[in-house]
């Protein structure tokens, strides 16, 4: 579904990604592990079209999408839930969600998708008229996820969905991601909550200083000495 070949990204002189090739097949859940500043967020932002690659190619459902704007990628079903939630604080919860279904091809189904999301996160329905900025951190994370789902993703990219959440909410968010996966959505997830993410994922890649250092099935990674030492704190 997603094929990335020899991707390199730089901010000025600073090389953020170098020669990164990954693939995500339809229906898979794939994680990217790595230390802080390893390039994980840059990778997701480049796939979404928010950052321009210096070299390399990105193919989505067989089509080269390098030249497409971020919103055109969303229309094709490639959706990012960004780190730090990035909800519109002065819009209501419901308006934030409706903006997720802004593309013409998702707008018609918007009301029924909205119902599905309210069923998944009843808290959002309770607060639908409230301004998004007045939600707690965890509720804003649900809203960001809900907004991403409103875009009817075929590939959903999640950047640190559990950041700043209390343990109970982390479980709820991870359960919601598992639900989304079970509904057939392909998921690419970056998450420092490595233990739980490896339980959720089929496969993973490890990024180190902008380069891929390792890849394998989730269970291979969980038992790899290198991963255990570097990321699992064991």
């Amino acid at each position, binding site marked *: 579904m997603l094929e990335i070949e020899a991707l390199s990204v730089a901010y000025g002189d600073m090389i953020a990604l170098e020669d990164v090739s990954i693939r995500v097949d339809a229906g898979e859940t794939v994680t990217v592990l790595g230390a*802080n500043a390893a390039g994980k967020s840059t990778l997701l932002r480049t796939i979404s079209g928010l950052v321009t690659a210096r070299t390399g190619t990105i193919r989505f459902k067989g089509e080269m999408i390098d030249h497409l704007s971020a919103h055109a990628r969303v229309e094709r079903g490639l959706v990012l839930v960004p*780190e*730090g939630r990035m909800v519109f604080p002065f819009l209501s919860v419901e308006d934030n969600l409706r903006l997720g279904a802004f593309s013409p091809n998702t707008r018609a189904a918007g009301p029924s998708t909205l119902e599905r999301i309210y069923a998944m996160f009843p808290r959002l329905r309770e607060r639908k008229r409230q301004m998004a900025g007045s939600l707690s951190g965890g509720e804003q994370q649900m809203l960001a996820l809900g907004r991403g789902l409103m875009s009817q993703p075929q590939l959903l990219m999640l950047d640190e969905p559990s950041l*700043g*959440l209390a343990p*109970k909410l982390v479980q709820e968010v991870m359960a919601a991601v598992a639900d989304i996966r079970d509904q057939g959505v392909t998921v690419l997830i970056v998450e420092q909550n490595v233990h739980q993410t490896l339980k959720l994922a089929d496969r993973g890649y490890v990024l180190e200083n902008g380069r891929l250092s390792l890849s394998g099935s989730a269970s291979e990674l969980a038992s790899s000495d290198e991963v255990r030492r570097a*990321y699992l704190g064991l």
Partner: protein
Amino acid sequence: MLEVDRITVDFHGLRAVNEVSFTLPQGRIFGLIGPNGAGKTTLFNAISGMVRPTSGAVRLNGQDLLRLGPAERNRLGLARTFQIVKPFGGLSVLDNVVVGALTRGLSVADAREMAQATLARLEMTRHAGAMAASLPLALRKRLEVARALATGPRVLMLDEIMGGLNPTEVNETLALIEALNAEGLTLLVIEHNMNAIMRIAETVLVLDGGRLIAEGPPAEVTRDPRVIAVYLGEPLEDA
């Protein structure tokens, strides 16, 4: 010793912190946990002087802090970090920490030396020349710690500095906190990472809906059914 005595904070009719009292003895590490929106950061704000409580008192080594502003409280030895990081984005990492050190009344040269030593201690020397705004979030959080430490605190309050760190980075941060504590620093730590809190805090305070609902050793608090219901969701696994 930090004493929080029946502190209440109201925001336009919303009681964010409700009659919270605890005593943090010198040289100890206390953890502060609770669901999102429980009032943890508001309590930090009341202790550090960022918001004025509706009622109650805060005392540091017996001295009443309530009429003092944040800068005066800092001069008495109270420092904090911010969960929503607040670096001087257009200054270098080093200069951010120099600003902290200058609050001690040092000369600029001495403040610079102190700042360099602080960065070395936090293993941030290689980032010293970078613009603060250009650092990834986890390093901006560490910069918060560096700037607070450079003010020379006796009590340091940390607001979720380990969010976004992987377990190995968490271990490094815990080792640093333990080393600072061994040198006599008293700490109050907000953190959602329960494995981290369990390892450093001898007492854990639990807030829910602005009220202190539990207080005690971590192993005890995490078995409290109420804490499990509102915060943990399920009992902690032995990790």
